């Protein structure tokens, strides 16, 4: 057995006060009581969670924080064992270990028009950044995409803080039929005032964002999701190549200048534990059935 700390957690019991299913069996959001983290969390920060004594540590973005109520919001996509287990928890349950805020926050300053691009679950993480830009007095243009209309997250929330919300779906059920980066490209062609683009989503989307913005010469940031263990600079699992340098995404990121990122390497490294992840998930399903 490991020496146990006092599990008072970071300032509370990490109780789940609200759970909202966004896409059944795939994506949900949880509001968690974590006053200390809520008081410190800034857009771009993430937290590391561990759910059981035998569990893995996984990073999730802090999608929103309410310092007054002492709440943080997380949004997760069920990918494998840990997120599937998280999905079995509900209101009143607690997160065993919750550590944060981690990572460097987004550098937000008043500068004019900022385009926030979000794909899939990345829209949730992007939401906090968009909100920060809105509060700083920037004109926020949100560009969001998903496979179909039902899978578009956070559209109403974004509408409240964005000058406009542009939408794309793969099947054309809402907005532009096609990729989110096509919408982004068109917007950049029509608005020369854009100061910054921030992209959060699957790696192929972030790579496409980098390609699209390059000819416009507009500062572009992406939030990288490399595999993490501690989330605080002690293992090097999260290392990414940016501008030829080996950087730790958890402490020097997770946001980096898009044009400098080696996306191929990131994609490759995300597959490092595929075989073991499948074993874990299979065992979890078997146990859930029996």
């Amino acid at each position, binding site marked *: 057995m490991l020496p146990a700390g006092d599990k008072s957690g970071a300032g509370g019991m990490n109780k789940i006060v609200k759970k909202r299913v966004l896409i059944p069996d795939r994506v949900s959001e949880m509001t968690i009581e974590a006053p200390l983290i809520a008081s410190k969390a800034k857009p771009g920060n993430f937290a590391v969670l561990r759910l059981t004594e035998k569990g893995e540590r996984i990073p999730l973005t802090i999608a929103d924080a309410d310092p007054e109520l002492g709440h943080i919001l997380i949004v997760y996509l069920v990918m494998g064992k840990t997120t599937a287990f998280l999905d079995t928890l509900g209101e009143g349950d607690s997160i065993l270990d*919750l*550590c944060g805020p981690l990572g460097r926050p987004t550098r937000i300053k008043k500068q004019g028009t900022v385009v926030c691009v979000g794909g899939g679950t990345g829209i949730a993480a992007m939401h906090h950044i968009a909100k920060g830009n809105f509060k700083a007095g920037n004109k926020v243009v949100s560009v969001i995409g998903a496979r179909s209309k039902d899978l578009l997250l956070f559209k109403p929330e974004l509408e409240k803080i964005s000058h406009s919300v542009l939408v794309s779906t793969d099947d054309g059920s809402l907005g532009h039929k096609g990729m989110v980066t096509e919408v982004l490209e068109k917007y950049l062609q029509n608005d020369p005032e854009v100061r910054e683009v921030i992209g959060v989503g699957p790696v192929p989307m972030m790579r496409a964002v980098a390609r699209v913005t390059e000819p416009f010469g507009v500062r572009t940031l992406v939030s990288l999701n490399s595999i993490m263990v*501690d989330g605080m600079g002690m293992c090097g699992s999260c*290392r990414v190549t940016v501008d030829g340098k080996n950087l730790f995404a958890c402490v020097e990121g997770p946001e980096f200048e898009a044009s400098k990122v080696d996306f191929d390497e990131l994609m490759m490294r995300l597959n490092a534990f595929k075989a073991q992840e499948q074993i874990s998930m299979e065992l979890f399903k078997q146990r859930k059935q029996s």
Partner: protein
Amino acid sequence: MKKKGKSKVRPRTPMSMLDPKERAKMFSEVALGYNLKEAIAEARRCLQCKKPSCIKGCPVDVDCKSFIRMVAENDLHGAFTKIKETNSLPAICGRVCPQENQCEMVCKLCPTGHPIAIGRLERFVADNYYASTSCEEETGSGVCIPIDENLKVAAIGSGPSSLTLAGFLAARGVKVSVFEALHAPGGVLVYGIPEFRLPKSVVQREIESLKNLQVDFLCNYVGGMTVSIDDLFHQGYKAVFIGVGAGLPKFMNLPGENLIGIYSANEYLTRVNLMHGYRFPEYDTPVPPGKNVVVIGGGNVAMDAARTALRLGAGNVKVVYRRTKGEMPARLEELEHALEEGVELEILCTPVSFHGDEQGVLQKVVMQRMELLEADESGRKKPVPLEGDFFELEADLVIMAVGTGSNMVLTQTTPELKLNKRGYILADAQSGETSMDMVFAGGDIVTGAATVVEAMGAGRRAAKEILRRLKA
């Protein structure tokens, strides 16, 4: 250590070990420790010198001579109390301290080749006298000072420096809270040093004994992120000690270093020790499998990683080091244990590039032979590559154990804290005082990667200074 076999001195009492073939497959502790008879026999060899040198060799001033005498007299309670007067983590020190460079090196019997096995005796006493812990054992005074809830001190990080500080202050009535960023306290003792060398139950016992002294352990608190040093003073802490270690693993910036299959020793050992990955899939955290394992480096960390890989089923494990066996920083004992278990050593070579398949999975390492130039002013022989002399090692797992640097999480969010050029905290060598008022620092975050007992020494000195200031 020179061996003069002809002296009449009785040799050191040997300690039983698990059989190398057996133990290379499991995580049980390798060195089994003395029994009472062996311990007394060993203690009786002590000369009880008038001017003992052993005490001076110990960074935390353990009165070796006296506790050894008590062991010889079968007074284990006395011996334990004596050790605890200055050393709050004897069961750990007895296992992981490099005694051969400290107390045992300066022992009057050392020239005979048979210094008193002070480390083994310390471990024996600690393991065998641990019925309960009280202020008496912590202070050696028999007086239990009640904790003053208003006299609060915070320690950031829970490695040996902070644990020692906490023990010293709590035994003197100070309320100590230890803030740890990970989900379990202990620092390197828990996430780095493997079970087969330092069982986690031993660390647990030391932490429980601190809890008995009303030390609070608050996990998942990242100093500088969850809570800042200013926050701590606002919450009423009178002093803050920083013992966050030197946990940032270094890489070599070689081509192919980010292929799948290349890990820092910190990541590998953390997955195995802290996350219990060796029991995957019962525990969720996977450990990278390896049949042909290459460990790069020559220190204790490299030995721990190599021996761990063997236990996880590697077919062959090579430690590659750019100098020769004589220059290796690892403890001789750890190197010998590793070799007995089947770890191979490849000296005078260094990796130059890593190569993988289309999926980015590591296949082989290209190595270059080195030679040693004569020692320069620094006294260390300098390794230089031999032009054109390359060879290949087949490998599916490479573990980089080439050192660590300062972790920036706390320091970059606390700009008032002055650092040296290498990013370590500037602190007074005696008092541990930093550039911030009532903020002290010690251990690896001040010295760079060093040893458990040196971190403890720093914690103890800072604790003394803090106590002096609090009482002033």
